[in-house]
């Protein structure tokens, strides 16, 4: 007979407030095989763990049930405790009487009944547990960073500095991301390019870093420590090795009508182009949709003028497959389209612009050389109106319910920059609430009001009426209850941030989840902010939720630290709860091999002695390093020859029996 110990945790009032602990203890004591049952306020604390440890030794327990919170939370903790006391960690079971019971019920009597049933199921299961020994797997000591914005750049630099190889995969022709488009950064107003471009150079020259631009992730196989990633490098039509970056091709290209993505459409670019002068790599790409050669077969001027002979029209997409130990996702964010916000006249008036367009308009390297002029007539505006929360905190189908977080600060920055350069331009900011938590942030906003004379108006804009050269802005001051009319020359809209269009798709490829807004979900909102639910995959930057640059960089270094921690291990301990084939029962149908998502099951031929006659037979065989214990094969196996160790059919049925009793 086993000697099972049951330990019931109060979790303060979290469990004890809804579950009668005394009754659970009394019932547990009566369960078959249980020789000891005890409660404690916080079983996960040092005192609680010591109680478990000492009792295992004193009572010579051979199996333990902890009735407490979710195993997701503390299963690992209690397995470690058991191990210290000399018990195989897989002889511990957790009954989840918090998330599955006390937190979701109000009636104490019913909740107590359920807590007893859950404990009974765990006792029934643990009775059938066997000692399991974890195997080991190797770790590919290379990381992949998806996205080459500031988040990806910082992550890659930190991992590379720690001595590991890193590859960056970037969708667009250059790394740099949104930060490369920005003029100044808050709250210090230092030049964005001045602090970003050196980092871009560092990345491109670091011996441990490889950059794949114009490339997209295609599929991911494998698991923590051993991911196998295939990416598609789009045809650049320019030979990266030969190109010397002289720029003659872009100058001479006769097709100059494509909108520059980098300049937010405020300037046109040629069909062969580098997104911006500091681009890395400084090698142009041919936009095949705009290129005359690709459209009509005629032209090819770039090829003629290229002194390096680098133009290659015949280039094709190439597939690259590599192995990685860790993956960091840093694909950034976008801003929402404003076509549904007709009242702001964004789509039909050139002088109504987004904040990102404004960044380009004030940028010395931008389309106007940093001179603030109206896009429509290139005249200097006299009054500029900023509208915050365009689509943020918006419960309708046109917006996003969340606060975009960065707009209050960048709008203050924009208004301040105008007032600094052109004290004669009047600036107005319509806001719902000014939200500026952060080091030196509110001081920054107050400076805009107090020192720079930016007119902040608490209220929204109802509609913008284009009126000759002016834009009549109809707003309200919610504090005084006055409706307001401003004859503005330019309006800047702080459009809501949103997750990248392809985030959900990428999440599916990586088996990581996204929330209702398509931002990637962290493993724990407080304690695991850079981890995902998939081991070995981490998050950095605004793809996890709206973030400013300092926060992004901090999270990027956090994600890098986690990746380094993983890559620094020679071996990872395997999960021993993997499938096992009972060769005696296996019929050799191999249905399991087709269902296995990890290609972990193959076949082998065994010889056996059937009453003195030696015969050969095909059976399934599990690769212990590849199996992730998902259990798909156990369901597909018709004769029932496959079991997951630690979750055998017998154990599960024992649990069900115990619950139904």
């Amino acid at each position, binding site marked *: 007979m086993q000697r099972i110990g049951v330990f019931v945790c109060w979790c303060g009032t979290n469990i004890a407030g809804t579950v009668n602990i005394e009754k659970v203890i009394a019932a547990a004591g009566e369960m078959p095989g249980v020789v000891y049952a005890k409660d404690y306020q916080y079983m996960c604390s040092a005192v609680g763990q010591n109680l478990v440890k000492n009792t295992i030794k004193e009572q010579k327990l051979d199996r333990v049930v902890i009735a407490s919170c979710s195993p997701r939370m503390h299963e690992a903790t209690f397995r470690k405790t058991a191990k210290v006391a000399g018990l195989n960690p897989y002889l511990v079971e957790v009954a989840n009487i918090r998330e599955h019971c006390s937190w979701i019920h109000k009636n104490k009597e019913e909740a107590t009944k359920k807590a007893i049933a859950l404990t009974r199921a765990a006792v029934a299961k643990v009775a059938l547990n066997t000692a399991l020994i974890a195997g080991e797997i190797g770790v590919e000591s290379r990381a992949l960073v998806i996205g080459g914005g500031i988040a990806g750049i910082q992550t890659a630099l930190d991992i590379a500095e720690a001595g590991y190889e890193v590859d960056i995969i970037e969708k667009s022709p250059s790394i740099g991301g949104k930060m490369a488009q920005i003029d100044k950064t808050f709250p210090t107003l230092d030049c964005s390019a001045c602090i970003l471009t050196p980092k871009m150079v560092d990345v491109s020259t670091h011996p441990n870093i490889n950059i794949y631009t114009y490339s997209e992730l295609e599929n991911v196989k494998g698991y923590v420590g051993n991911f196998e990633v295939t990416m598609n490098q789009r045809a650049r039509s320019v030979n990266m090795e030969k190109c010397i970056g002289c720029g003659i091709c872009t100058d001479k290209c006769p097709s100059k009508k494509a909108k520059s993505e980098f300049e937010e459409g405020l300037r046109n670019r040629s069909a062969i182009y580098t997104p911006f002068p500091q681009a890395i790599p400084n090698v142009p790409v041919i936009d095949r949709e705009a290129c005359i050669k690709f459209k009509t077969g005629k032209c090819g001027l770039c090829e003629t003028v290229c002194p390096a002979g680098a133009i290659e029209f015949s280039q094709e997409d190439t597939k690259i497959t590599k192995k990685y130990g860790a993956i960091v996702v840093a694909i950034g964010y976008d801003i929402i389209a404003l076509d549904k916000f007709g009242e702001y*006249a964004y789509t039909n008036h050139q002088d109504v612009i987004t904040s990102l367009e404004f960044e380009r308009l004030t940028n010395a390297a931008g389309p106007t050389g940093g001179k603030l002029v109206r896009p429509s007539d290139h005249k200097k505006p006299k009054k500029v109106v900023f509208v915050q929360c365009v689509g943020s905190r918006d419960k309708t189908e046109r917006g996003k319910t969340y606060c975009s977080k960065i707009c209050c600060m960048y709008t203050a920055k924009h208004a301040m920059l105008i007032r600094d350069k052109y004290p004669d331009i009047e600036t107005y900011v319509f806001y719902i609430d000014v939200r500026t938590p952060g080091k030196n942030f509110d001081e920054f906003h107050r400076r805009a009001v107090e020192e720079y004379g930016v007119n902040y108006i608490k209220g929204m804009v109802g509609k913008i009426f284009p009126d000759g050269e002016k834009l009549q802005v109809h707003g309200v001051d919610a504090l005084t209850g006055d409706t307001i009319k401003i004859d503005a020359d330019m309006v800047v809209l702080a459009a809501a941030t949103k997750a990248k269009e392809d985030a959900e798709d990428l999440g599916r490829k990586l088996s990581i989840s996204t929330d209702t807004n398509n931002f990637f979900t962290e493993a724990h909102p407080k304690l695991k902010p850079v981890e995902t639910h998939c081991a070995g995959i981490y998050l950095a930057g605004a793809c996890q939720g709206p973030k400013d640059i300092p926060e992004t960089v901090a999270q990027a270094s956090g994600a890098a630290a986690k990746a380094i921690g993983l890559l620094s291990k020679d071996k990872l301990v395997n999960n021993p709860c993997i499938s096992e084939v009972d060769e005696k029962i296996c019929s050799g149908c191999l249905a399991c091999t087709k269902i296995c998502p990890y290609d972990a099951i193959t076949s082998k031929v065994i010889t056996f002695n059937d009453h003195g006659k030696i015969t050969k037979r095909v059976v399934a065989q599990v690769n212990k390093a590849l199996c992730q214990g998902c259990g798909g094969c156990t369901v597909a196996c018709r004769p029932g020859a496959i079991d997951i160790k630690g979750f055998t059919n017998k154990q599960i049925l024992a649990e069900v029996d115990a619950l139904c009793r």
Partner: protein
Amino acid sequence: MNMKYSYYPGCTLKTKAQDLEKFALDSAKTLGVALQEQKEWQCCGAVYPLATDEIATKLSSVRSLAEAYQKGEKLVTLCAACHHVIKRVNEDMKHKEDIRKKVNNYLQLPNDYEGECEVIHYLEMLRDEIGFESLAQKVKKPLKNRKIGAYYGCLLLRPSKVMKFDDPENPSIIEDFIKALGATPIIYPYRTECCGGYLAIDQKDVVEKMTQNIFESASKYGVEEIVTACPLCKYNLEISGFGDENNISISYFTELLAEALGVK
């Protein structure tokens, strides 16, 4: 083309807004569209009852809708207010369980009505059923060189979640219609701003201010004629006198249509 629809005229079209209807029916004939006036239509109530507890005021709309559905026809409306009321009541019948139940309990129709009928405005019929391109081909007297501003008003566009008529802030249906007739549509920012509607009864001063804004905006953008689909909009715009002041005439869109088709 041989198209058949049930047609709901509404009270105003039989009295003060006869032009709106006459030109619509004459044009329909030319376009090969049979608009069969419903036999026993009743006043829609002119305003959609907004309170959640209003039932009786929705019954007349449901009667028309159910009858059209029974005949297997779409229901065409012409007056913007009627369209607004009937369309919203239909949406209630589709989506609001309590209203559907109470209305059906009261009406005791042969079959319960659950919002199955499709109600479309005459303009939607032109756009979605006939198509502005085919309309353009039937134009006999193109309205060349005429600068026409659409005045949408409120009731066709808002709330767009229910009306699904056009982009509520940047509509284009009437401009496309004007273009099809060979005229030049002029877009001016106040074309979707309210004229004051029923405030005409009791708050004439408020209406005056609102219509003045509309005319000023239209005039600034060079509008010479305004067309509308709503009798009350037309009244408010006309009575204000700003049209005469700014040399802007006001007519129903159907009048324009009849003129271009050569049946005016």
